[in-house]
């Protein structure tokens, strides 16, 4: 049985100066070894906030996180080689000229060996480009270089913020297939925040749909068009979903979690 890597239990978030304005409400899910969790939702729905909580950049206002079954008391427990983080390209400050091999070595700042950098660049298909400047790479290559940086420390969880943004459909497939290979070969768990609904449905095992205080999470087989439409508040066409009418409704009711009400009220 695959062991759990990261579990969120009733995670809530609000800014201290606006406690009534909940950004996240009672988010619970887990991701196990080798699994991929895709996080979907409209802009302003709290995806990036949740992601920042998962990698220890922000503290949840309420709720807990467990890393490999151990409760995270301090954000620093999430930092270090365990979690590989791939931020959006726009988050990088590329004013300084940095070579690919130096960029990748950032991922293991204390003691990275040359062979580790070479191996990880080979893994992501950037062999022979060690001495190129990061700014000279194409969009897809930059994403791969970011992935190489995240992988060099040998993390058991990869967290990616909009990895397909700016890539054409071939580039998106290549990147997401590379992630699938990493999951299969190294049992690495993956969490992806993205706007590309079809790619997320195609490449992830579990889905978390999020829009402020409403969320839905389950295996992707249970995701329906109506769930997405209620989260996004709009209608969709051309989604890569199975027809859900044939799904066993009992099973569906037991496994789905659709939350847009106050849990305490529900409990009562």
């Amino acid at each position, binding site marked *: 049985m695959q062991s759990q890597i990261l579990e969120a239990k009733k995670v809530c978030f609000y800014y201290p100066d606006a406690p009534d304005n909940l950004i996240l409400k009672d988010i619970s899910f887990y991701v196990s070894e080798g699994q991929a969790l895709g996080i979907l939702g409209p802009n302003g729905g709290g995806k990036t906030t949740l992601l920042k909580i998962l990698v220890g950049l922000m503290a949840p206002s309420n709720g807990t996180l467990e890393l490999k079954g151990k409760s995270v008391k301090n954000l620093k427990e999430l930092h270090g080689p365990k979690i590989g983080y791939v931020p959006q390209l726009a988050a990088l400050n*590329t004013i300084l000229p940095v070579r690919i091999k130096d960029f990748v070595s950032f991922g293991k700042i204390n003691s990275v060996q040359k062979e580790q950098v070479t191996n990880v660049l080979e893994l992501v298909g950037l062999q022979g480009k060690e001495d190129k400047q990061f700014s000279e790479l194409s969009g897809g290559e930059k994403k791969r270089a970011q992935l190489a940086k995240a992988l060099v420390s040998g993390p058991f969880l990869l967290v990616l913020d909009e990895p397909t943004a700016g890539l054409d459909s071939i580039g998106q497939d290549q990147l997401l297939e590379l992630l699938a290979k990493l999951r299969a070969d190294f049992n690495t768990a993956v969490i992806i925040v993205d706007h590309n609904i079809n790619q997320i449905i195609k490449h992830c095992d579990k889905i978390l749909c999020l829009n402020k205080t409403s969320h839905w999470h389950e295996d992707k087989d249970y995701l329906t068009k109506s769930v997405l439409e209620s989260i996004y508040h709009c209608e969709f066409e051309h989604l890569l979903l199975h027809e859900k009418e044939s799904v066993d409704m009992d099973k569906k009711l037991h496994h789905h979690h659709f939350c847009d009400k106050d849990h305490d009220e529900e409990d009562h």
Partner: protein
Amino acid sequence: MSLIQGMTDFLHYDFLFLSLIGTLLLSLSCGLISPLIISKRYAFMGAAVSHSTILGLSIALSLIPATDSINIFLITLAVTLVIVIFLAKATFRQRLPSDSLIGIFFTGSMGLGVIIHSLFTGQKGDLMGYLFGNILLLDKGDLLLSGLLLMLLIPIILIPLKRWLYIIYDEEGAIVSGLSVKFFHYLFFILLTFLIVSSLKIAGAVLVNTLLLVPGVFGLRFGKNIKEVILLSISFSTLGSLLGLYLANLNNFPSGATLAVVQLILLLFSFAIEKLKRKA
């Protein structure tokens, strides 16, 4: 004054020799830190720190004679550091943009400094000399401080250079990797404060920003990798500053202003040459 005499003066007159060594030390420090200031997008922060020194200077000059350079330095440094710690806190991963807060804060502290100077200092100290630089104020104590600062700055920047680069390149990634980004953030502000306070007599609180920014812009424009960027920045800073000091002495111009103008002209000249080369 002949061109040769403009050079030999630096060996014949003690105050000019002191200014030569002081300028050399300052330009080396500025050249080293300048690419980091530019790439961290802290140009405005440098201006804020330098203007904040006026409060410390006014307090120092109201308490002790202007000739006591070590104690002037220490009091100015202490007061400026208190202000800078607030500035550092206001700029570390805050939700709201901090530019306006910084702008209000440093102009307020500068205004308070001018009031204290007018109330308590009177004719005891020349605040204008510290605003725009006056090499006649330099003494051996200042050189000692500048030398010590450079000795500190070289290992603090160069030994953990990879960490500095990572934080500049990807701050959030650096935090998730386990780097103490907050420590480096505060360390950078403290180094910047030391450097600016030690440069007040040569360049002045207003004009020191040119020395902090122009070499880094040159290095980043023409350097192909980080080593080249730092070496070009230091070379530009040193040559530009020494040429500025020489021209200031030759034409009897104010030192800080001449250093700033010469560096700017050299930068524009280098851009023009680059453009001509591209066309050719």
